[in-house]
């Protein structure tokens, strides 16, 4: 799965360069372990919400590469019928809310799903991923307060990828550890190595178990790193290539492969996985490019019935 994401992202870069994908695209290469680790402990009843940096979470939660590519290319067969693009990936049939392009705004939405779940006596928790930069947005603080007061089953996942857009995370944090800020809402917090899929998985497993048992929220901070720029086209003047290379030595995919090899998995099996994912992603990109774009008149489909169809 991490391969699938990595390979998806490198394809996206290419497609964007070729102007097959519009708007701004926010890639997550480097951060794969967080989405994959967390999703690996989620059940079908659980809901998920994430941000414009959407591809990793979308794939990890089972959206197919072809419908994701199709969405990024604005095709009718895209997972949101081309309405949202890369920034707005959702699929409610999998209990995935449309991802949000307003920093932190998806957090209350996810908590609302948890409220409904709880109210309706349904099983399932809500997982909401957001960045380190989102922690300074007031609405996150408000939502954490209500999640704690109402004991909502929410896993708050902070992907601390060291930067909020062009600004280093810690320049904008008044305390040494983001996870410590959860105490202000009385929410238990844990941290994990977001460059290690097993570490994420075990932290998430424990957190989810706690939520399912007690009902109340847990905050999980995963330390990770994005290898690409904030978005396509970012000249990355705010960091050195040495820094990026240093983080690459902790690469989650490489580490997992090393561990698997140590555990006796043959090299061949690993490269087979890698190749099959790459091939599948390639095929998906090609297929998506063949899909149709929507007709202009379809614009009214997703509009409320009363919308006036005139300028």
């Amino acid at each position, binding site marked *: 799965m991490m391969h699938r994401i990595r390979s998806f992202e490198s394809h996206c870069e290419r497609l964007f360069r070729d102007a097959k994908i519009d708007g701004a695209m926010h890639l997550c290469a480097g951060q794969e372990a967080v989405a994959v680790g967390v999703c690996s402990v989620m059940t079908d009843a659980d*809901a998920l919400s994430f941000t414009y940096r959407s591809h990793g979470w979308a794939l990890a939660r089972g959206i197919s590469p072809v419908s994701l590519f199709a969405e990024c290319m604005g095709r009718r067969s895209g*997972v*949101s*019928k081309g*309405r*949202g693009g890369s920034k*707005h990936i*959702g*699929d*409610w*049939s999998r209990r995935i*809310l*449309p991802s*949000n392009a*307003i920093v932190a*705004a998806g*957090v*209350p*939405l*996810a*908590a*609302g*799903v*948890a*409220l*409904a*779940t709880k*109210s*309706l006596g*349904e099983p399932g928790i*809500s997982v909401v991923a957001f960045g380190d930069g989102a922690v300074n947005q*007031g*609405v996150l603080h*408000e*939502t954490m*307060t*209500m999640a704690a*007061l*109402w004991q909502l089953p929410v896993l708050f996942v902070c992907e601390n990828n060291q930067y909020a857009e062009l600004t280093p995370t810690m320049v904008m944090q008044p305390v040494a550890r983001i996870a410590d800020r959860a105490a202000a809402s009385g929410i238990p917090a844990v941290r994990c190595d977001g460059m290690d899929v097993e570490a994420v998985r075990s932290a998430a497993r424990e957190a989810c178990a706690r939520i399912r048992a007690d009902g109340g929220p847990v905050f999980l901070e995963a330390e990770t790193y994005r290898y690409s720029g904030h978005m396509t086209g970012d000249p990355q003047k705010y960091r050195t290539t040495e820094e990026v290379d240093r983080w690459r030595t902790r690469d989650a995919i490489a580490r997992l492969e090393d561990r698997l090899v140590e555990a006796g998995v043959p090299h061949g099996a690993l490269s087979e996985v890698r190749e099959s994912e790459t091939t599948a992603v390639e095929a998906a990109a090609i297929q998506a490019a063949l899909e149709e774009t929507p007709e202009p008149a379809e614009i009214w*489909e*997703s*509009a*409320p*019935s*009363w*919308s*006036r169809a005139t300028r």
Partner: protein
Amino acid sequence: MVASHTIVNEQLETVTSTYAQALNAALSQEMRRDARVTLIGEDIGIGGVYTVTQGLHDEFGEHRVIDTPISEAGFVGIAAGAAVAGLRPVVELMFADFALVAADQLLNQIPKLQLLSAGRYDLPITIRTQQGISGGGGPQHSQSLESLFAHVPGFAVALPYSAADAKGLLTSAIRMNEPTIVIEHKALYFRRGEVPVGDYAVPFGQAAVLRHGTDVTLVAYSQAVGWCLQAAEFLAERYGISAEVIDLRTIVPLDIESVVTSVRSTNAVVVVQEAGGMASIASEIIAQLHEKCWSDLLTPARRVCGLDIPVPYSRPLERYWLPSVQDVVDAAREAVESK
């Protein structure tokens, strides 16, 4: 205040109640009818500042009547998420002014959530709030903000004037599967009217002709309807001018056809609203009539609006800020005389 002229189906059994009681009846009936209807807001458990949610916490308990901290952005967002996942939340924003604290959720999120769903879910969220001037509220508790919700597309927007419509429109709003906002008026809460008992839904997008007339059409919604009815009375008695009064009831959808029909016969129109005129619903109505009644209007459409400056506290200033019945009368006379 003149008597309510709302035309309620003669067959329906009615009861005299206040606007606030009518809203309360809509809430309790809908909550009984559908267990997913859940109220969310500040101080609503104890009945709300304007008593609209009185008794509901006792009847339905704290899971159906959820008191929130003072975190409008957060709880509006939570309600929206809950609407995606199967509740039918009715959110109370104590004052429309506070909607601005939650504007990201109200204007960036809720209106876009269905577009982004690719049709996979309904979004049955209703926002209830109240606005306008009732005396000494000052600049942060007196605003009329309906035009914002009309300009940024996404909400169906109702502004009931009569107690009956308060009940009927709120009922419809709660039953709709798209985002709705019912904007009440603080000066109307304790005004009485005849309200149908039992199930009563007033569809969105249908204006009501509250008074028939032949010389000029007065168009309004919310509390301004009262001014128009008073003005019509006065115009008839004092000047022998016959004014038709139209209560739009909802501004999204906007039943411009009813206005056009009326203007076709009166050939003159005054649009009245409490909000400032600039880039507002009144501007929109006139812009539409300009085109649709091009040859019917024998004199320019007039508008009577609040001033385009913040609402001051001091009574004489506040009174001057507000459009008055006299302003409506003057505009109507001018229109009729210049036909």
